[in-house]
């Protein structure tokens, strides 16, 4: 039996940062990764654009990951790759994990746990695409794996559904590999990806973007032969009579990511339906004591820099949790953070007003032009911040210290966006 203070599940940027931070705080740390190498999804993101916020440099995914992997290795943190967490049980104190690897089945006891398991992609059936089931329908991440990891070309004439960043990046990648990308189709009236990706991945390559339209059906018995495209109304329902058939051999789906929280579910951790991740406090502790969450498992990030930041927060908090006195201050006194009008979600969902500087991550629920972000304790306005615009695809980060605003524990603070 292995015994540690902090066990990190997932060796992507979130898990690496968490392990490093916890180790620097003096905890006995171990990291578990299911794949053969750490780095998470970054291993296959060979495009650049990573690390602008943190390093003020344009790094590729593997380069960004490499910096953390080096820090991780320098600290001699214990890790296991090709190791899968099969089960977690709560104990009187701490948790007991059952892990499976090529060595066998092992038990690990840990005082605290950090979930950094990343996210998974929504699939064709989940977005209710109908028809036959030929080869040639891939999620963007799978297509990226074929090209960037296996060195295999999965497409010749491709249609991309979804204008999220991954879809945009794949449009460019496929084009560079000699495929013809017929267009990116997006059900919403505005693109979901970062503006710079629209420019660099589509406009620079003359790839058309079709808004308010979607794929409703696929054709072909062996390999995909065509897709049916439909215009959609404001509720994203296909408009009858607008069907059009586009011949192609590949459909790439970039229709959203979902935090991977199967392990959290087995621990009965409360999940936030808005984020799909656990409900957390300002230390990124979930509803189950001693269990923390960070990165894309907490909520889907668009910039890896914030993923690392949340990992560091979870790592420090977990180490602090292990050093705690017998009384448990974290559960003591929190205020609810309530996302109101104009907000899609807000992380964390509650926090201790006395903890000092807190970092909030949020997304607006729709596109706003010039607007104010308003924070209220009851009816009392405590903060107002101006934004030139807010767009749901672009997550915002805000630092607030609630200490000065005399908000009472047990009360709630609400957040709203006001159009100017």
């Amino acid at each position, binding site marked *: 039996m292995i015994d540690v203070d902090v066990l990190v599940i997932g060796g992507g940027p979130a898990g690496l940062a968490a392990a490093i931070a916890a180790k620097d705080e003096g905890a006995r740390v171990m990291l578990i990764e*299911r794949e053969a190498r750490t780095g998470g999804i970054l291993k296959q993101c060979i495009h650049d654009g990573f690390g602008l916020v943190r390093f003020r440099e344009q790094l590729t995914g593997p380069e960004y990951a490499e910096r953390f992997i080096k820090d991780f290795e320098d600290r001699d943190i214990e890790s296991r790759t*090709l190791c*899968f967490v*099969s089960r977690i049980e709560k104990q009187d104190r701490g948790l007991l994990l*059952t892990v*499976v*690897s*090529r*060595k*066998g*089945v092992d038990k690990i006891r840990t005082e605290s746990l950090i979930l950094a398991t990343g996210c*998974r*992609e929504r*699939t*064709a*059936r*989940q977005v*209710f695409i*109908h*028809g*036959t*089931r*030929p*080869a*040639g329908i*891939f*999620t963007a*991440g*799978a297509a990226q*794996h*074929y*090209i960037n*990891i*296996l*060195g*295999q*070309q*999965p*497409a*010749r004439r491709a249609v991309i559904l979804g204008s999220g960043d991954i879809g945009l990046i794949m449009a460019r990648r496929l084009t560079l*590999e*000699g495929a013809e990308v017929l267009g990116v189709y997006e059900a919403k009236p505005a693109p979901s990806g970062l503006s710079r990706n629209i420019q660099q991945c589509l406009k620079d390559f003359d790839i058309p973007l079709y808004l308010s339209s979607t794929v*409703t*059906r696929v054709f072909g*018995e*062996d*390999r995909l032969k065509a897709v049916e495209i439909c215009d959609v109304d404001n509720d994203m329902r*296909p408009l009858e009579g607008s069907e059009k058939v586009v011949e192609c051999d590949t459909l790439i789906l970039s229709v959203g990511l979902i935090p991977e929280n*199967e392990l959290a*579910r087995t621990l009965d951790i409360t999940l936030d339906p808005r984020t799909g991740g656990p409900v957390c406090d300002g230390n990124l502790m979930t509803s189950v004591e001693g269990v923390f969450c960070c990165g894309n498992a907490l909520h889907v990030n668009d910039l890896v820099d914030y993923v690392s930041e949340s990992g560091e927060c979870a790592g420090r908090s977990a180490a602090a949790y292990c050093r705690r006195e017998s009384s448990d201050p974290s559960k003591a006194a929190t205020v609810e953070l309530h996302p109101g009008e104009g907000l899609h979600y807000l992380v964390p969902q509650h926090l201790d007003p006395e903890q000092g500087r807190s970092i909030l991550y949020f997304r607006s629920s729709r596109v706003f032009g010039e607007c104010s972000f308003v924070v209220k304790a009851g009816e009392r306005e405590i903060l107002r911040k101006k934004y030139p615009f807010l767009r749901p695809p672009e997550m915002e980060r805000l630092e607030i210290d609630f200490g000065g605003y005399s908000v009472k524990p047990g009360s709630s603070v609400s957040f709203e966006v006001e159009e100017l």
Partner: protein
Amino acid sequence: MDRLNKIRKKIGALSPDIRVTRERGCIVLRGEVDDWSIAVKAGHAAVDKKHSLGVINDIRLKGFEQKTSLPALQDRALDGRRVDVLIIGAGITGCAAARELSAFNLSTLVVDKMSDVAGAASGANGGVVHVGINFSRKSQKHYYNIRGNRMYRELSRQLDVPFEQKGQTMLCSRNWERIPVALLKLNARILGIPGVRYLKRSELLDHEPHLPDFTIGGMHMPTGGITNPHEMTAAMAENAASNGTEISLNTAVLEMELDPDSSKESGNTHIRSVLTNRGRIYPRLVINAAGVYADTIAQMAGDRTFTIHPRRGTNIITDKRAGYQVKSSMGKSPFSILPYQQKDRPRGLAGRMKFFINTLAGSSHTKGVGLIHSLHGNMLVGPNAVETPDREDRATRADEVESIIRMQQHIAEDLKFSDVIAYFTGVRASTYEEDFAVRRGIFTDNILQAAGIQSPGVTAAPAIAVDLRDWAIEYLEKEIKVDRNPAFSPIRKAVPRTAEMSDEERDALIRSNPDYGEIVCRCEEISRGEIIDALNSPLCVPTVDGIKKRLRPGMGRCQGGFCGPLVMKIIAEHQGTAPDAVRKGSYASVICYGGTKGGRL
């Protein structure tokens, strides 16, 4: 009035363009219509079980032409092959028959046009091992269903396929429904089905803890069970293969050559050879288990007395999270009319009586099942039943999926659209007699028919196979001596399911072979070792779908997003081929077109 004229009159009222004749003991319909439902109604109107052999409905739908998918493979691998038995179709019926025959010293060849066994109806159904309460006593459905149901437990044990027998539940919403339900109970007694009882809501909760609010009670039928139909079919095929049966996939029967003199001599036609895309085969005996194409095959053999009218059905799979809502299988009683159905309820006494009688006579085509607990812990919702002219109409449709969910939300009250992880459509091979047509050849001496195997074919297949085996041996013994196969073993071992083992067992297995410790599919927790075992099985189907169907990587919530590329790589390594040679399923289902510009592994 003469029987034929009676039928003509009924059909004439449907459409003036249909000609009705009587040929070789069958009622034959010809003509062209522009509404498929007329063709189906005419077929049903032509049924006269007492006085005719069956309905041959050749009515065409204007503008429709059947597109039959054929394997892209062309070679001569089977050319000139002589076999004792040729089985056409590797669905559950064909594979069950192959397994039964593999107990004898015969050369048996199974061909199927698809790239895997259970590629058609046998891989696209709910897997309910039916009780069979609403069949008529004289039907073949009843005869084979009750026998098949009794065989399932032992069969599942021998083939190491999971089987659960926790009963089937029919829910009642009103007190008066107990009257027709009592009649069904009586029918059960007549049919010899044990244990059927009406239970009050409070008692029923022991069997199904998540009953919808409207339920006042229901009928519990303990012999109902659940199998995994794809696994069962594959297990039968593997067992047959390890006992010496040859299974040739991607092999379509295209034509038959009939003996020119045979029919004159004995009044019986004789099949001389069977042409496929892989060459010409010379069988002593042919077993037709071709599902929706069984009438086409029977026609080639000169032994057609029936017509398949395809009936599509869609099932929906939910995430395991939603699986708690059903423990075995349940649906509302066919009599109960839920509040939302009030507007289509049968009117008046006569209307209601007719509805009851039809329901009791088993002519309603779904078995009242709505929710099925899959053996993997997901919930299956459906199926519906829609007539279609297209025998390969396996595409799913948005409106149908939506209406199935909305309808079943009355029974699974917590069911949400977001719980859906997949859906699939299968086509039932129904005859107009709405019964199986399992028989020896009538006009052709060396064919056995296993046709019209619609629901409950999964349940019935093992019993159908026993008759096919006996008839085959009876026929072959006229020509050759048939001995038992001394090497026959009825036992097949499944690939170990490491995730279901105890920690000690799993640890020991991994220590003996570390591949069992490397998890490839994270949703279903499947290891590299299990994938390699499946590739080493007696019936190796080295495609991504072949592996997925056997082990379930790619069947979980990510639907293969993570593991698809990994599985492809493992298959390529195992088979010693390039990754782009690995197919999704069929011979032409290319996944990757070759290496990227610079990249070479």
